[in-house]
């Protein structure tokens, strides 16, 4: 499944490179993936094979039309029509990784309880770059379930500074 997601991501990256907007497309794919994570109804609808492919593509175009590049809309519509909606989150993650590698950087998925300011994003990116030894782009996901603090995932490494994690540690200590 990961291999299939990587193949789709490579195809998406190739299309975006051809269009000269891989950076934007990967970012928009990441946002679409976050939207799917946050909406069970949308995820189930786009994955439901009982719904005609044309209908599912129409839903994608209705959601993204005018708010994303046509390239992004086209590749998402193609993935949904191919019945790979469930792989869209992994494809988006791989596309972001490919974009970062093209620019000689890494991607850190950062979850926070509230949105970060630009200053916080810049300082966090600089801190993670210093900690890992190479340039890191951060993709922020607002996730109130972590209650507070930050959870950064860079590849297989997780740096969990969330309030939820601290409470869990405190509960384990008891």
């Amino acid at each position, binding site marked *: 499944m990961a291999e299939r997601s990587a193949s789709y991501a490579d195809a998406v990256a190739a299309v975006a490179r051809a269009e000269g907007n891989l950076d934007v497309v990967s970012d928009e794919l990441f946002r679409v993936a976050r939207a799917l994570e946050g909406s069970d109804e949308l995820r189930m609808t786009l994955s439901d094979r009982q719904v005609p492919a044309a209908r599912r593509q129409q839903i994608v175009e209705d959601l993204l039309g005018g708010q994303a590049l046509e390239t992004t809309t086209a590749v998402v519509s193609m993935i949904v029509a191919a019945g790979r909606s469930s792989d869209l989150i992994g494809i988006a993650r791989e596309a972001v990784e490919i974009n970062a590698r093209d620019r000689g950087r890494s991607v850190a998925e950062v979850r*926070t*309880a*509230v949105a970060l300011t630009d200053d*916080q994003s810049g300082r966090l990116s600089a*801190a993670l770059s210093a*900690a890992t030894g190479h340039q890191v782009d951060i993709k922020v996901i607002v996730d109130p379930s972590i*209650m*507070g603090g*930050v959870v950064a995932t860079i590849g297989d490494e997780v740096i969990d*500074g969330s309030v939820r994690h601290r409470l869990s540690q405190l509960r384990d200590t008891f």
Partner: protein
Amino acid sequence: MSKRLWAAAAVVVAAVALSASAAGAVGETVGSCIFDELGEAQFEGIEGDGFTAVKELKTQYKAGDKHAKELKEDFEKDLEGCLEAPNPIIPEVTEIIWGGAAFVVLLALMKWKLFPVVKNLMEQRTQRIQDSLDDADRERAEAAEVRARYEAELADAKAEAARLVDEARDQAASVRADLQSRAEADIADMRERAAADVEASKRQAIADLQSEVSDIALGAAEAVLGRSLEDPEMQRQLVDDYIASVSAGQD
């Protein structure tokens, strides 16, 4: 065999001696003796001999002649001599000859016919007795052998019985020891489980109490923290602290 022969000869001699008589000794009867005495009689002073002399003596005696009386008394003594028995020990020669001949013939017949038969009968009887003795010995030996075998079997049976009893005793002891060890093991196991159960219950109670206390404490902390986290400044401070810790190489 020679002793028996001599004994038979002695019996024959004794029978001949005892059967001897006065008349028998001279080979004539009393009557012939008296007849001979009368025929050969001669008396002093009397003419003639034989019956004539006896008849004359009788006449003179009846006439009262004293000398005739003496002669008559002497002649009567001679006649009475016919009545006297011969020598009881030594028979007459003829008798010895005839008796010896008869004895020899009888002895020869006995040796020729009787003794072999008697000997054969005696040997058969001896053999029969010997066979009986041998049979008795053999039967006694067989009885002894049977008895020995019986005693051996009895001893074996006793030994087997003793072995079985010992084996049964050993098995009983083993079973008893096994049951005792099992019972002790079960008791120890039950005690251990009971102690473990008590310990587990205690730990569970402590854990439950700790969990309950921690839940209460964490609940209170989360309540306080929740109110604090509603403050944007608190959220900003948490992010800044995280950035500072990452910068310092801490998580």
